[in-house]
């Protein structure tokens, strides 16, 4: 097996699976076949070569391919085929030497620097910076003036020069592993450093080290070919670069000389690079796996009926979701995350959508907005907003509703503001581009909104970048942005979860005030009964992708019908929650010691 391919041999160590998977990978299989042939030729070159690669024959100078010299003769009357075979051996050996030096130096220093830090760490960083401040070819040329034209020295120095590639990868992996709990555990249980490095740390750097191998070999071969192409090579070790040099400067006399080495060199570096891509796909699972569902999507199993308290007021339905199903492509078919979403939000009401994490609440919200993450798709059901069907609409069609009639407040305030733009820019951009306001008017509106959501110094917030705001401030900014268009429906996805307890209450108060003022409907996604009790008129309970119970908040709290709803109540630490007082809900003291 040692004669397969330079990168395949070490790759096999990481388990029998990888090699087989590589062969099956479309790029991996082909490139490994090419490399196998090239390596075989290189390894057997001394026996395969029909002539002494440096024996000259005056009769054969620039000879055409013929029975004696199968690929013809070069400018000195040497057999091109023999030279090509021997050059293959030397070129590959050079590439492997580069890789060996780079791995040895980079891995060792990276391990030591990453594990112990200190002096080696500083020296490593310094050496890395040094190698990046000078093109390597200049170093190699300078080294040649000292070492002479030795291919081995040149390649060893190049290996040293690109060892920081390994150093940095190993260093970062070791740094992150070093602080892992299991390494701490190993250390406290008395394992020596050598054992820890061998057992835990090496395991962590194995994949990236293998991953870089084929690229480093390709870089070594390419650099050596370029170096020798400049005529700097050692004539006693013929390489592809030297043959190209001779061929290129005799191009007017014969184009034969260039063809073969160019072909072999090009094929080898391409195969190595493609092998690197295949390795990355297999080791990191980044492959472009085009999803072919084994079977078309189908809803598996019955969807449980919705227990409706039947106490809905006669108000006009603004949003009606019927039997909505959302699925993502998975290894074998589909993963259906929402199976039967059923929901009605009336004008002006605050509707709570409650369920534990992973129950599909957020996915339902994204599906309504038409903002499902990559891969997610609405498979069945309908979403009707103010009489219009939203499922199947294009992005552009959805944009006629989003940001004007339907708005969204996200869960995590900091990651939902673009770090590269000021708050003011992010607030005014949609006002100008979507609502068609003038810049000055948009700025005025934004400032008054910031004041309205309770930001003490609106102008300062307007000029700030997101990282200069606190989480609570950022959430207020996002709410200001969401309500800036006076929407009919505001979808708030866990708007208080990421905030401090005191800030949570303020944000809920703010939502309530805004609702009273603007008369919009709010669909609030939450896992917190306190939030529901605090501000929701009605509530729908979701379990494992299905809505199981819906009704007026008070009715559901007083007489939960579904066992899951009862289980949720039972899980609240203080015991069963008290029903909220009628009227403006602010008396909920349930889950809600958490709130006030």
């Amino acid at each position, binding site marked *: 097996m040692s004669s397969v391919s330079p990168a395949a041999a070490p790759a096999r160590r990481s388990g029998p699976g990888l090699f087989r998977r590589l062969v099956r990978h479309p790029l991996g299989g082909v490139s490994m076949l090419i490399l196998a042939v090239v390596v075989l030729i290189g390894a057997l070159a001394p026996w395969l070569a029909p002539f002494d690669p440096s024996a000259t024959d005056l009769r054969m100078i620039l000879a055409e391919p013929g029975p004696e010299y199968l690929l013809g003769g070069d400018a000195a009357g040497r057999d091109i085929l023999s030279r090509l075979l021997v050059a293959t051996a030397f070129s590959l050996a050079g590439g492997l030497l580069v890789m060996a030096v780079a791995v040895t130096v980079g891995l060792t220093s990276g391990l030591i620097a990453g594990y112990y830090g200190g002096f080696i760490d500083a020296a490593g960083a310094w050496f890395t910076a040094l190698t990046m*401040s000078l093109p390597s070819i200049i170093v190699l040329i300078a080294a040649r003036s*000292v070492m002479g034209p030795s291919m081995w020295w040149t390649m060893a120095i190049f290996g040293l020069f690109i060892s920081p590639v390994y150093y940095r990868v190993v260093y970062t992996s070791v740094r992150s592993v070093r602080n892992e709990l299991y390494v701490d555990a190993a250390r406290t249980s008395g394992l020596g450093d050598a054992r820890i490095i061998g057992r835990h740390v090496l395991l962590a750097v194995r994949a990236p080290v293998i991953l870089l191998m084929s690229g480093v070999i390709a870089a070594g071969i390419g650099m050596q070919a370029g170096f020798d192409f400049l005529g700097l090579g050692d004539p006693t070790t013929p390489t592809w670069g030297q043959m190209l040099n001779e061929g290129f400067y005799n191009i007017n006399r014969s184009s034969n000389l260039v063809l073969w080495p*160019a072909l072999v060199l090009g094929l080898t*570096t391409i195969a190595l690079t493609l092998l690197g*891509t295949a390795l990355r796909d297999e080791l990191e699972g980044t492959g472009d796996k085009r999803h072919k569902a084994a079977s078309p999507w189908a809803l598996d199993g019955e969807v449980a009926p919705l227990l409706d308290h039947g106490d809905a007021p006669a108000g006009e339905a603004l949003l009606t979701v019927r039997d909505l199903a959302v699925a993502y492509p998975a290894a074998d078919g589909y993963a259906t995350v929402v199976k039967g979403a059923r929901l009605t939000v009336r004008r002006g009401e605050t509707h709570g959508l409650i369920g534990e994490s992973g129950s599909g609440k957020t996915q339902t919200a994204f599906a309504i907005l038409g903002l499902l993450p990559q891969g997610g798709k609405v498979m069945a059901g309908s979403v009707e907003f103010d009489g219009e069907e939203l499922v199947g609409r294009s992005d552009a069609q959805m944009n006629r509703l989003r940001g004007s009639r339907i708005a*969204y407040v996200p869960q995590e305030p900091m*990651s939902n503001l673009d770090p590269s733009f000021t708050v003011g820019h992010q607030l005014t951009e*949609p006002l100008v581009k979507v609502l068609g306001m003038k810049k000055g008017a948009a700025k005025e509106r934004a400032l008054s909104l910031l004041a309205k959501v309770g930001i003490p110094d609106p102008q300062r917030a307007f000029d700030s970048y997101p990282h200069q705001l606190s989480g609570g401030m950022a959430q207020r900014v996002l709410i200001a942005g969401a309500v800036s268009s006076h929407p009919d429906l505001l979808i708030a996805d866990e708007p208080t979860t990421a905030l401090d307890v005191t800030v949570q209450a303020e944000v809920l108060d703010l939502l309530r005030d805004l609702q009273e003022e603007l008369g919009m409907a709010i669909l609030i996604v939450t896992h917190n009964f306190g939030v529901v009790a605090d501000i929701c008129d009605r509530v729908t309970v979701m379990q494992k992708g299905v809505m199981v119970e819906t009704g007026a908040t008070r009715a559901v709290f007083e007489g939960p019908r579904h066992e899951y709803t009862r289980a949720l109540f039972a899980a609240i630490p203080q015991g069963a929650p008290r029903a909220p007082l009628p009227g403006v809900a602010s008396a909920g003291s349930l889950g809600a010691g958490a709130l006030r």
Partner: protein
Amino acid sequence: MLSFVSRRLATGVGLIATLAVLTFFFLQFGVSDVAQRIAGQQAGPDAVAVVEERIGVDRPVLVQFADWASSALTGDLGRSWFSGQEVTEAVMSRMAVTVSLAVGSVVLTAIIGITLGALAATRRGWADRAVQFLAVLGQAIPGFLLAMALVLVFAINLDWFPATGYTRPSDDLGAWALSITLPVVALTVGSIGGVAQQVRGSMIDAFERDYVRTLRSRGLPRRSIVFQHVLRNAAGPALTVLGLQFVILLGGAVIVETLFSIPGLGPLALNATSQGDIPVVMGIVVVTGVIVVLVNTLVDVVQAWVNPKVRLS
């Protein structure tokens, strides 16, 4: 900001000093017979001694270095041992040619690489696969091999461009453009791939960010999200790659210049090292180091301008 830049420059000066010291003492191993070569093989010991005294290698190495360093600080890099030409002048005039090749390639790389990367990230599907394949291919083929193919096809067979030689832009702008087209293309092809892949990766990454969803929820058209928000956030990593590419392109230029007989740094470096012309080699190393440090600092400054977090902290 000012202290940020000066800190970067100070590190750079330290790097260049290290570079100079290492190179100088490393090169000492190769100069044993340089005086003999300058004087000629037939020259007797007396003549060689005269040469040794003239170029100063008869003094202790440390004295030589101190001497070199103190005049280098004033901008005087000495004279070539072989041609007697002033090193500062020789390196600078040739560096101008090499840097113009590298800058041309970086600009071309940036334009094409960012366009292709953005295309791959926004269209996905077959466009994505095509860009990725081309990127890998471009990186895989050694630059000089491509340069050679370009010469064979476009200069020798089709005769559209001059195969070798260089016209100064001050002499004839059109001829200059023609003379650097093939070298710049040869240099650029290899570096486009890296930039395109980086732009693609960081744009796809940016697409998945929460703030993109929130911007979409506010009804902003996809086009303005891509061109303003996603591209702006992907710009940082792309800039870093472009900065690295510049150093790689400087190195590539050495080979490509030799191939196209362009009087840049490459041929000078080859000549000087094969002769053991230490002052010239030192000059090349130091001036290259200075340029790289300047470019890296420039990249950092632009980085800070793009990323408010860096700028304001």
